[in-house]
């Protein structure tokens, strides 16, 4: 958005730096801005615009909860209705961050209770939230409408019960994968019988049974329900009854496809799906097989997102299903579909933009099959619009990746995980440098990259030289020495997040990014060669960064096992647990 001042204004006020617009008009105009990046730009223009922007902002996105304090946020933005907060470093998803590390939302809610009593939406990712906090959300925020939790922990289903009990205007309850203490399904029965405002309900990742009758009544009285994702304890016959009450669903997460249906029940199910004309997202499908999948087919004609990562389909089953999904744009599957299944993707989904292939048994070394480079190539030939891929495989070649990016040069997100750490090209035994070289050379729009396999400095030279739009880079078990990381830090102007584990990068590499880190959100380095002294030096030179170290129990005093560096205007953490050393 081009927000240059009009230099040709006839008003002389212009020369005195007074805005030609009254504040109210400016605020009204700016309130139409949704992107927080645009809003940041706007706020830098001049003082008037800064003020107009801060008064008109209703949603704030905080990518690192420790980069700013709730008091600072409340002081700057008086009219916030919706908050998105992200907490722990991403590697906490993979158990690399100990429990009780922090990112508790409580201190934020305490401030919001006075600053934003009319808060409506809270979206948390990798934060800790307790049942008490959930209850306070219900009690202290009378307008609270939407709660979304992803990769969070610290709460139980009792907290969900508190939300259901107290939030009279709730429209969204979106509980994605979390470390939740599942004490039972009684929380769902806490929604009052006169409660009708729900539009989004997602409890697919909860394990215990909810009371089905309560669920059915809830679904039938919430006429605006658009998104319903149930857990795997809901059976097909029950699903059919829910669908009858909510034919206008746009997103559906089914329950389990066990056990058996009678022919009559099957016909009813098919009919219920036939009536779901608005479905664009489908997920769940636990234990789905060709036995009952065909009941779904009538509902798939408008599908744009199919999430099969809970359904261990085989290639034939997937092929048959995809034949009914011509408009598919996003697909998530397990690698049980194998290369043959991916060939079906290539031939059935010409509009595909995003593909994620997850391993069904990632820790099982006896598994011989899964997907290989061949499946990925098949998709690339058939889906030229592909721009987002997350691919777990057990073998890959440089030539394959080169072919893939030649077919699909528009990748913005390329995340390749060759599951055996440090594995070379299995045909040539070479490192996988040329593969990622091809990616960064060809895909000029690349924003996010995750590398794997046997990699030398050369990969990082390529990244530094070519990946000029790269914002997020994930590296594991790769590299030959400091030079690699130095290349990336000096070569990628838009780098915001760098996360590294088990690489031979040491102090020289860490310190080469001295001035870079303030323009980045964060840096994570674990199991590298960085020492405490190196971290202390960084902390001393760059006071506006928080340099935090977590040491493993068995390590030498000088080793900095886990390093987390991030820019902040809030100073060092005041809530750090003893195992987090702030330097």
């Amino acid at each position, binding site marked *: 958005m081009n927000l240059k001042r009009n230099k040709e204004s006839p008003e002389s006020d212009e020369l005195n730096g007074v805005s030609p617009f009254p504040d109210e008009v400016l605020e009204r105009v700016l309130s139409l801005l949704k992107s927080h990046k645009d809003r940041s730009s706007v706020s830098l223009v001049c003082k008037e615009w800064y003020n107009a922007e801060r008064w008109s902002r209703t949603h704030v996105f905080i990518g690192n909860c420790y980069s700013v304090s709730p008091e600072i946020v409340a002081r700057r933005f008086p009219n916030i209705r919706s908050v998105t907060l992200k907490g722990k470093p991403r*590697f906490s*998803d*993979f*158990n*690399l*961050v100990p*429990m009780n590390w922090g990112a508790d939302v409580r201190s934020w809610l305490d401030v919001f209770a006075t600053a934003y009593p009319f808060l409506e939406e809270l979206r948390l990712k990798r934060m800790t939230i307790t049942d008490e906090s959930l209850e306070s959300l219900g009690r202290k925020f009378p307008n609270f409408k939407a709660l979304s939790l992803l*990769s969070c922990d610290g709460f139980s289903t009792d907290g969900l019960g508190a939300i259901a009990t107290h939030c009279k205007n709730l429209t969204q309850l979106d509980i994605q*994968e979390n470390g939740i*203490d599942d004490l039972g*399904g009684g929380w769902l029965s806490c929604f009052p019988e006169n409660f009708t405002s729900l539009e989004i309900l997602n409890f697919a990742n909860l*394990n*215990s049974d909810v009371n089905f009758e309560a669920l059915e009544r809830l679904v039938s009285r919430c006429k605006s329900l658009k998104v319903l994702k149930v857990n795997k*304890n809901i059976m097909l016959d029950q699903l059919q009854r829910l669908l009858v009450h909510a034919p206008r669903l746009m997103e559906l997460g089914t329950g389990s496809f*066990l056990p058996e249906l009678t022919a009559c029940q099957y016909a009813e199910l*098919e009919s219920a799906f036939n009536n779901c004309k608005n479905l664009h997202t489908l997920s769940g499908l636990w234990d789905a*097989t060709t*036995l009952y999948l*065909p009941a779904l087919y009538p509902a798939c004609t408008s599908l744009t997102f199919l999430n099969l990562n809970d359904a261990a389909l*085989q290639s034939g089953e997937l092929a048959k299903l995809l034949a009914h999904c011509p408009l598919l744009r996003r697909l998530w599957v397990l690698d049980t579909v*194998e290369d043959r299944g991916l*060939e079906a993707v*290539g031939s059935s989904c010409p509009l595909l933009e995003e593909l994620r292939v*997850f*391993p*069904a048994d990632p*820790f*099982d*070394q*006896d*598994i*011989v099959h899964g997907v*290989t480079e*061949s499946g990925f*190539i098949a998709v690339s*030939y058939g889906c*030229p619009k592909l721009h987002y891929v997350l691919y777990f495989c*057990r*073998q890959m070649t440089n030539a394959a990746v080169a072919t893939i990016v030649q077919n699909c040069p528009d990748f913005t997100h390329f995340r390749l995980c060759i*599951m*055996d750490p*440090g594995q*070379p090209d299995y*045909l040539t*035994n070479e490192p996988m440098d040329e593969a990622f070289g091809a990616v960064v050379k060809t895909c000029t729009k690349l924003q996010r990259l995750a590398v794997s396999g*046997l990699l030398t400095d050369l990969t990082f030279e390529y990244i530094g030289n070519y990946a000029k739009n790269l914002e997020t880079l*994930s590296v*594991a*078990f790769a*590299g*030959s*020495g400091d030079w690699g990381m130095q290349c990336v830090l000096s070569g990628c102007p838009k780098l915001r997040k760098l996360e590294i584990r*088990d690489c*031979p990068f040491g102090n020289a590499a860490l310190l080469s990014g001295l001035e870079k880190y303030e323009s980045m959100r964060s840096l994570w380095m674990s199991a590298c*060669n960085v020492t405490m002294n190196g971290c202390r030096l960084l902390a001393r030179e760059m006071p506006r960064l928080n340099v935090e170290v977590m040491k*493993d*129990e*068995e390590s*030498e005093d000088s*080793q900095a096992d886990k390093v987390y560096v991030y820019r902040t205007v809030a100073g060092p953490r005041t809530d750090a647990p003893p195992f987090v050393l702030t330097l």
Partner: protein
Amino acid sequence: MRTNAYQRFLQWKGSDKVSTITTNTTTTSSENSDERNNNGLNLKATELRLGLPGSESPERSDKVGHSLGVLKNLVSGAKRGFSDTIGNGSGKWVFSGVGGSEADLVKSGGGLFSPRGGNGGKPIVGSESNSQQLGLVAPAGNDGVPQSPKPAQEKKPQVSASNGHGIGPASKAQVVGWPPIRSFRKNTMANNPQKNDADADGKLGLGCLYVKVSMDGAPYLRKVDLNTYSSYMELSSALEKMFSCFTIGQCGSHGVPSCNGLSESRLMDLLHGSEYVLTYEDKDGDWMLVGDVPWKMFTDSCRRLRIMKSSEAIGLAPRAMEKCKNRN
């Protein structure tokens, strides 16, 4: 355009770029030797061996470009010398087995690293972590596991292996947090309890007792929780349901449920007839025929199940052979 693209893919597939090595030869274990595709690979050279470092090891052919077996790089002659990896402070690998194989490795001296996990040697406790999936870390010094040399002083040299390829893991043992799958995802995938009366409130009694079930000729393994069954009959019928599609091919052409009866009885024939026998590996590593001991004793000692072709069952207890003959 779609057709052309697919034709191009078929052309690529048939071209010389794709070697004759099929895509199905990634990880293997010695048990699946009959399933390995022998495409000119010198399988003897890559046979899984367990042994102390420096022990006799087969020469590795240069053609083998990918890892085979659990302890590939412990075999000297691998690209990265063993001593490189053990001496450079990468003794951070969590060394653990799945399903008890850690005990084997320790016995044979294969547990060579100071096991250190992401949480300083403590077992990884995600909120609902499943120890079988994550691979527990044994605290260093226990179990007689020899420790790797501690990392040197602060100014330790840059890590670079002799061939300039840098650090790689010395083995394919489970590493903390790798592959990068969300721990919550792992939990939901591991905990797929089958509904039955004992679990009416959704809680499992004594915890899960997951064992792998493999079937000769099936493309992948399944897992079952033995605690959800109370008799051999229940286990047997559950396995029939699970594996029926492998023996019969795709079942259910147009969603008609009645075809279940047909495939089930056919599989029952196969399982109870002469083609397949159900066997299990017990705590001592011996393969036994399922059904000989009381159910409780069986669940206590069973480590994994295998639906074996009867022709392979030679070598089991003589009674097994007798049973096979009786069924013919």
